[in-house]
């Protein structure tokens, strides 16, 4: 594919790699910034996971055990916010930072200083958000953290929101600034920094899916900014956006929020599609089946994501024509998604398959994400959604697509590219333990949620009716098990970071394709100072 000589880069390393604290704080290097993003997102994953453990401890058995309902609400809210904005999104941005310049043969991201700003906003934004939980647990008078669910519907978040809501609003603004700058950087890098010969339709699918993700981010994060701005003025400056007495409507909030929120869920999953489309061909030793159709399917999913938002609001009271429109549009999304799943399976068909760690995670992704997709299709059907709405069935659905979907694919990516990042092969024993424990515990955790949800157990309550007790016990066991299993991954990554383990060659996976495998492992500080020529 490429003729770039790896040794080329060493001669150009004339400005020395900065060292110490300055290297990380003031970085303009896409690899270091990618590393920062990845560690940050992992820290957020563990923090958000800790909040989930509190939720599952409370729900282990019926009745009130450890926390009061008010604090429970804060746990579900901040768990969701931290996982969406702190764990999944920054993890995929970290992957984009590390891999896109390597994959398209660029020396760095197009706008390196802005890249660093995108990252460094995040720790401050999450200090504000998580700080409100710390204050709620330990501060004088226990001032409430945000407690209205991660969707922060008005009027719960406007008229009835706690004082910390204003801090929450401003931290969302900060996350938004970070996301928009990060996304602009990706789009410009892809359009302007490709090596000669790297035409758009030669780009690895991970680059394509991130390009489309970045477009979605630029289009909808400003709408989220608009939503929280309206919240702030409703709370403090007397406006009536979400207050019917002044001619507004609380439902308006839901429309504005989900106009952001639905593309947002594809923002979290599209990069995963790119990851899996890189890994499956590598371990099936066959080129990706239907490359062009994958690109078009991704673009179709992105475009459709703008016209399906109200399927989150079927029960709120919309005109019949509205619900029908949003139902059919939502069901239509299963067509391009089906194309993708078909292509992954067809890539594996009659391939010379081996099952190294990245491949295990990728296959688990394909199967379990499809499960989550199918329950999504059930939820799309308006009349039955009246039964499922705001039950654990919905919780099961979005945890299948986000945990066994997005997060499993991020693990796949980590095991696949850790040799390139660190120069060390991830520890196989720990990795296998991590995979099997996660796979079994995640299903024990999330699968029974379908049953209790269909039986009518509502989400976001600190207690439940007795008939749900057995299922919830096992769900909680699955939850603790899944949570503990992630410490194995911490061990894997720390070993790689400490350079303990088997050294990785430039191309550790026999069937892997792409420019990133042409540079040594670990990838040198600067790569592709002069662009490679892609044939």
């Amino acid at each position, binding site marked *: 594919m490429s003729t770039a000589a790896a040794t080329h880069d060493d001669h150009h390393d004339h400005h020395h790699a900065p060292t110490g604290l300055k290297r990380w704080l003031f970085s*303009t290097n896409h690899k270091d910034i990618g590393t920062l993003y990845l560690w940050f997102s992992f820290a957020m994953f563990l923090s958000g996971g800790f909040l989930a453990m509190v939720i599952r401890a409370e729900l282990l058995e019926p009745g009130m055990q450890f926390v009061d309902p008010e604090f429970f609400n804060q746990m579900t809210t901040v768990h969701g916010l931290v996982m969406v904005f702190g764990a999944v999104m920054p993890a995929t941005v970290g992957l984009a930072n590390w891999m896109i310049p390597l994959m398209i043969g660029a020396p760095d991201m197009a706008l*390196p200083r802005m890249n660093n700003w995108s990252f460094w906003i995040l720790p401050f934004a999450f200090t*504000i958000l998580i700080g409100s939980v710390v204050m709620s647990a330990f501060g004088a008078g226990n001032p409430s953290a945000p407690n209205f669910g991660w969707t922060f519907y008005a009027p719960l978040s406007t008229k009835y929101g706690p004082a910390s809501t204003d801090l929450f609003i401003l931290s969302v603004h900060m996350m938004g600034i970070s996301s928009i700058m990060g996304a602009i950087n990706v789009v410009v890098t892809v359009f302007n920094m490709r090596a000669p010969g790297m035409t758009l339709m030669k780009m690895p699918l991970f680059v394509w899916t991130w390009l489309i993700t970045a477009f979605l981010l630029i289009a909808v994060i400003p709408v989220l900014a*608009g939503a929280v701005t309206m919240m702030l003025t409703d709370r403090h400056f007397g406006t009536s956006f979400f207050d019917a*007495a002044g*001619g507004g409507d609380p439902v308006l909030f839901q429309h504005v929020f989900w106009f952001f929120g639905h593309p947002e869920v594809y923002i979290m999953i599209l990069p995963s599609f790119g990851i899996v489309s890189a890994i499956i061909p590598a371990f099936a030793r066959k080129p990706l089946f239907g490359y062009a159709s994958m690109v078009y399917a991704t673009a179709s999913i992105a475009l459709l994501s703008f016209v399906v938002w109200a399927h989150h609001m079927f029960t709120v009271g919309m005109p019949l024509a509205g619900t029908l429109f949003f139902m059919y549009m939502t069901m239509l999304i299963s067509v391009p998604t089906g194309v993708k799943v078909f292509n992954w399976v067809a890539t594996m068909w009659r391939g010379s398959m081996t099952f190294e760690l990245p491949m295990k995670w990728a296959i688990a992704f394909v199967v379990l994400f499809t499960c989550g997709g199918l329950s999504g299709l059930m939820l799309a059907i308006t009349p039955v959604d009246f039964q499922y709405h705001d039950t654990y069935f919905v919780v099961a659905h979005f945890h299948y697509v986000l945990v066994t979907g997005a997060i499993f694919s991020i693990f796949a990516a980590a095991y696949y590219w850790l040799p390139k990042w660190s120069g060390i092969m991830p520890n196989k024993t720990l990795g296998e333990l991590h995979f099997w424990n996660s796979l079994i515990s995640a299903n024990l955790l999330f699968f029974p949620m379908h049953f209790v949800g269909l039986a009518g157990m509502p989400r976001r309550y600190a207690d439940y009716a007795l008939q749900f007790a057995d299922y919830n016990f096992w769900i909680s066991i699955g939850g603790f098990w899944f949570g503990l299993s992630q410490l194995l991954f911490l061990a894997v990554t720390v070993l790689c970071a400490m350079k303990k383990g088997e050294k990785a060659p430039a191309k550790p996976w026999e069937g892997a394709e792409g420019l990133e495998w042409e540079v040594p492992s670990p990838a040198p500080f600067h790569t592709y100072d002069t662009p490679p020529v892609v044939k």
Partner: protein
Amino acid sequence: MATEKYYVPESSPWPLTASIGLFMTAIGGANFIQQSTMADMEPSFFGKPLFFLGLTWLLVVIALWWRDTVNESVGGLHSNQLGGSYRQGMLWFIFSEVMFFAAFFGAMFYTRWLILPWLSGEGSNAMTHELLWPNFQAMWPLTVTPAGDTTQAMGAWGLPAINTAILLVSSITLTIAHHALLEGKRGTLIAFQAATVVLGIIFLFLQVEEYIHAYTELGLTLDAGIYGSLFFLLTGFHGAHVTIGTIFLFVTLLRVIKGHFDEENNFAWEAGAWYWHFVDVVWLFLFITVYWL
């Protein structure tokens, strides 16, 4: 194929320090807003100073950051490829701004086309109307809210029409300046760009007049119901953007006088011009949908 090397800046302290500025602005801002709008807050005095410290900090850091960028540009470190990155980045930034305004325009059309008719009983909402505010009548601009607050509407053909003319003329003067820049006519460029800046300042001045008129004579305020909410947030965010645009054009005017731009190397100038035209177009939509129709 570009043979020049792409300019990757050395490590820079500005991103981290700018984040610290944002952090102070956010924490101070939340406290400042609560202190100044909520009667039952425990008094605390860190919010206001921290907010203004954070804001000043942020502006100083951004100025220093852009000073670095300007010095690199003047020092010839920027390749054509980097110019392309800057230009594309600016266009996508403007697209994000368009989507920000779209949220508020969307809220306005949702209010006008759906919320207000429903509150007055249209569709399947007869009982809503009957049970909540049976006397409510849908109208736009909404001068009587369901709760009974009243206001007067802002007419289109006074100051707003004059302001429309001012922005349209400013668009023309800026385009003349743009052509002058590309043809190397320095005198014309400076004269017409200065005229654009002056027109921007006049616009802002008249907008303040209009707000005073709204508050003191029309009873049109932020808490006058959804019409006031939409009016002030749409025109207010637009005014904030005109302010930024005016400063932008003023800075590039100073840089024109210093001789920073030529026919080839003029990204910052063009970015300012694009931004100005974007702000103009937003105003045209505002004038038609908020003031006129």
